[in-house]
């Protein structure tokens, strides 16, 4: 028996928002989160951890986006989180600049 359509998103706009938030938004949050961590903590270790945790977090965020009630709201949350992590990244880079 296929999933009960009663619980699925019917509006095309909402569907578009959820799918893009899942794939693009999830990617932005996952990357910015790891980069922010890398700018503050052991950079090499975080970078190599990202080789697997980057994809796992991305997929987890995809699922969260599909569970959301409102696709645009989850986009807003993901964008906000990405900007927040980017802010942390730039702060981190100023405090711990990369030296050769």
């Amino acid at each position: 028996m296929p999933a009960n359509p009663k619980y699925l998103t019917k509006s095309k706009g909402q569907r578009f928002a959820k799918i893009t938030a899942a794939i693009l938004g999830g990617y932005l949050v996952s990357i910015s989160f790891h980069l922010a961590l890398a700018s503050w903590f052991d950079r090499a270790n975080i970078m190599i951890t990202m080789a697997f945790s980057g994809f796992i977090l991305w997929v987890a965020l995809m699922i969260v986006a599909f569970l959301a009630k409102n696709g645009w709201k989850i986009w807003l949350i993901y964008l906000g989180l990405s900007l927040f992590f980017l802010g942390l990244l730039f702060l981190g880079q100023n405090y711990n600049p990369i030296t050769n």
Partner: protein
Amino acid sequence: MNNRNYNIFFHTHTVSGIVISVILFVIFFAGSFSFFKDDITNWERGETAPISKQINLNYDEALKVLDSTYDLHGRKITLSQPYNVNNVAAYLEASKDSLASKKGKEGQFLYLNNSTYKTSTYVESYNLGEFIYRLHFLAQIPYPVGYYLSGFIALFFLFAIVTGVLLHWKKIVSSFYVFRPKEKLKTWWTDAHTSLGMLGLPFQFVYAVTGAFFMIKLLMVAPSVQFLYQGDQEKLYKELEYRSDDFPIENKELTKAFSINEMVAATKKNWKDFNISRVEIQNYGDANMHVQVEGEIDYGKKFTGIGKIVYKVATDEVVFKKDPLAQSSYLESVKNILYRIHFGDYGGYGLKIISFILGILSCFVIISGVMIWLVARDKKNMPEKKRRFNEGVVRYYLAICLSMFPVTAFTFIVAKLWYPLGQDNMYAVYFISWLLLSLFFVFKKNNSFTNRFCLLSGSILGFLIPIANGIKTGNWFWITFSNHQFQMCFVDVFWIILSAISLYASFKLKTISKLKKTN
């Protein structure tokens, strides 16, 4: 779990699964055979090679031969043994010497036979093992399309795995033990899909994550380079220890005689169970020539035990030394483990065979998922047009997926009888027979016929593989067995067992379908 979440997991699992299914099947099927890539290569060539990561080479002789044809002066030369075959990969970078000859300014990638020192290009040494291995990440589709496609398939496979687990979370233990073969077809497929899916879950999770990493790591690397390393990619690779230190060329002739063999032997002597896997020579023949000898401890002794010594040739000085027995860093371990757990090459043939079985089992999980999708939608209340469309989708899917088995067996035979087949012919044999057989099944419009025909024809062709090998080369598997030519013997015996199992299955299928008819 509330009903809403359950249905969302259900729907996203279904949609992502059905979209990736065919390509994922191709990846898993070819990938399962790729565990035996080196055996297949050796079998095709009729050779036996030591099963070890260690480079087997008289370096001094080999370099002399390379020098006469490619003028090594001032070059960086990397020698490694990526596969258990009778040749070594040699990467010759263009000479750093501004006065180098025309030959010396051309970079080269070659395979070098480790006893005859005969060199061959990548295309010249293309073989069946390489073909199947590359098919497994769709490398035959021009770069970067094939790589990205397979990478994203792996990513959405991870998505399907996680939503699948969430979907079954509540009944995860109980449904694992449920199998109701006598119930209706839908329950049969569902039970098989859930319990075998659970069984393969850790395996599939690992392959999904590492597969995504191999193929689309650029999606992680590019933003890191851009935002964290100010656009300097080298900095990232240096920090992750993917690059060794560069030594500048002095443009002065090296006056001292040297022997790479001695440096390799000296390095190997340092540690017990240490195998030399990579030798990198910088500024060949220059006063600032450096030799880096790198190796690994046996996986059975230490899982991540990478060591190296860098020598400055002019002074015989050890410039750098890394002890493989010292505690490995987190960075080193992750880098090693990401590859080892995907390649399954650390536990001998036992692990490879188990991995093969789990890989084929994953193929079955994919097919059963597609079948659930079809059977669940094959209802009276569904519009006729939609039902016909669904039926068509599954017919195409099964035709493409299942025909891989006889097509692979067929290519083994052709590759043996017309050895060396070469890259272009191999593409033609595999892809054209695949296309024709798939089209035949599509027009035949009978899924159970497709299934039985593939099992039976694959099995017959599979039995013919050792016979073709025996007739063509005289290397019958009992002869190779008594000669300890393990890899050749293995491929023959492997196909016999595989064919016997699929023959048994195809007869079983016949009796089942007969029973159903009489009922």
